[in-house]
């Protein structure tokens, strides 16, 4: 099966990235390697604490890494201190909570003008109107404040703001999880349409595989600071190789249930525990397939025949 996107040149690459917050003993990222191609959406999925937000924040330069290489457009990522604005405008962020990410004291016009003004771009009213049209908002919101807009409208403003500088890369951190299902679908479709027309690449973080399946060409599944499976979304969902991926997919509520109440689906028990064992598979305490080997040997992210990669000693479907 092929993706419906022409795989372009690599636009973001992350190699063996390690990040530890000073307040924590355990590192949050323990060697993450992945890349994002031009025009592609890579979904990043995992539970709270798996490091998916830290990954995004490292890529945009909000967090400094302990080791590893991040390249954006072939160069190193923009640090906060060095003022390489050309690089920084090439990569933009959309946050989870559109109630917190927009300044409540600014009008929508001011919010959308800010990044353009800072970067010395055209911030005329006609340009702002163009941005509103692009995300399907009426011009009448121009002088409104965020408090007057619904959650979905605010998230459209946040997307318009992020796209105003015509970035090459959009980083989206749970952009629809604070929204109603109906509005979620509007925003998901908007992101897909805009990507098609403007050609930017997306790194889309969510804890919900069903949402990821709607946006991502490829998906990276993260568990406690590591990528445990990465590959084409449709393939990963159809035949997950990592038990964790299978369990994540089984956790998503469905409209068609096999039998009422109980089902034959796998369920993972417990929560990810970060106070882990230095060696062995980090998922083994919740895994129903774990063996002695999983206790002693940390699995590496190895390619399977299908072109996908999985970090498991006992990948499924073998």
């Amino acid at each position, binding site marked *: 099966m092929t993706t419906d996107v022409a795989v372009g040149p690599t636009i973001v690459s992350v190699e063996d990235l390690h990040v530890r917050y000073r307040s924590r003993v355990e590192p949050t990222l323990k060697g993450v390697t992945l890349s994002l191609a031009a025009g592609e959406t890579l979904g990043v999925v995992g539970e709270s604490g798996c490091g998916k937000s830290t990954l995004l924040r490292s890529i945009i330069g909000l967090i400094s890494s302990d080791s590893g290489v991040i390249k954006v457009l072939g160069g190193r990522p923009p640090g906060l201190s060095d003022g390489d604005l050309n690089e920084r405008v090439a990569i933009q962020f959309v946050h989870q909570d559109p109630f917190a990410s927009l300044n409540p004291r600014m009008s929508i016009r001011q919010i959308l003008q800010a990044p353009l003004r800072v970067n010395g771009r055209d911030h005329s009213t006609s340009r702002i109107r163009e941005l509103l049209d692009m995300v399907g908002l009426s011009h009448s919101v121009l002088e409104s404040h965020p408090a007057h807009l*619904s959650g*979905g409208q605010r998230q459209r403003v946040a997307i318009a703001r992020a796209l105003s500088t015509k970035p090459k890369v959009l980083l989206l951190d749970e952009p629809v999880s604070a929204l109603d*299902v109906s509005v979620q*679908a509007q925003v998901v*479709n908007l992101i897909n349409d805009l990507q098609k027309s403007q050609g930017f690449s997306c790194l889309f973080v969510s804890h919900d595989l*069903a949402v990821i399946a709607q946006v991502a060409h490829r998906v990276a599944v993260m568990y406690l600071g590591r990528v445990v499976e990465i590959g084409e*979304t449709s393939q990963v969902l159809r035949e997950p190789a990592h038990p964790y991926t299978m369990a994540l997919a089984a956790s*998503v*509520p469905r409209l068609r249930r096999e039998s009422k109440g109980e089902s034959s689906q796998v*369920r993972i028990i417990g929560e990810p525990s970060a106070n882990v064992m230095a060696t062995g598979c980090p998922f083994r305490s919740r895994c129903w397939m774990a063996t002695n080997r999983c206790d002693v040997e940390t699995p590496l992210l190895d390619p399977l025949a299908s072109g996908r990669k999985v970090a498991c000693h006992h990948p499924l479907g073998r």
Partner: protein
Amino acid sequence: MTTNSALLEVRDLSVHFESGSDRLTAVDGVDLTLDRGETLGIVGESGCGKTVLVTSLLGLLPSSARVTSGRLRFRGAELSNVSGGGWRAIRGRRIGMVFQDPTTALNPLRTIGSQLVEAIAIHDRAATSREIRTRIVELLESVGIPDASGRLSDYPHQWSGGMRQRALIAMAISNSPDLLIADEPTTALDVTIQAQVLELFRSIQKERSLAMIFISHSLGVVNSIADRVSVMYAGRIVESGSCSDVLLTPSHPYTRALVDCFPEIGRPRGSLRAIDGLPPRIFGRIDGCRFRERCEVGRERADCIGQDPILKVASGGRLVACHAVSPS
């Protein structure tokens, strides 16, 4: 009293909010019946009135709200005229509740144990503190908190979101209620933890043959927990029936639209169909169907413009309020 054996009966309930001369309709003529041991799911978008509806079943409506019509019967007794003090004997005792956000539902300055003690002691004055403690430990272990006796002096911030929601479920069932009302209880949780908490609700419901009203904006969540589902739109129930009927073969155009925008694993990328626009806010009288503006079927139909549809029996015995659906 010819109310057969229904645990809860709501007839023609309407709730309005008044500010100045504006009168906003939140719930408009809703009927509900719930039997013992039955789970009813309520779905709909933000602002459709689902939370106001269940809040009125708890006597917790804000002071700006007015119940303008309706009768509530619970365990054969009228709830409509219950006073503030009367509610205290019902709420938390006969009707338990679990809210969306397990972080704000607990007092951050008090231990989890003391908050559970309070929930029990307020309704059971005779229990000794030792008895209460034993009950709390049993309760917490039954909701999946291991080593509960050693964790009673923990503060809420020391527990994860999933554990806090388990504690709140324990609190809600601590006085063995007949009815449990859960308002988006898993929305703030990770999908994996959501699956575990839903499993917990199912097992509690079965063990105690509790009746439950379960509110969610997610069709999948409601489907995994409820026997019947009512779909709410702009203060009205627009479709109601068994989960398998309503969610797999929706009749009302609104239910169909909700199903089309529900992300489900197995649907190809980019296949969601969004519903344009937002639900209306109803001020004053309304002519015609309130979903008409967003409806694919009835936007131009004369009856949809002129007449507010009422619930009628349709295929499979479900109730549907739509002019375009032929009654059976």
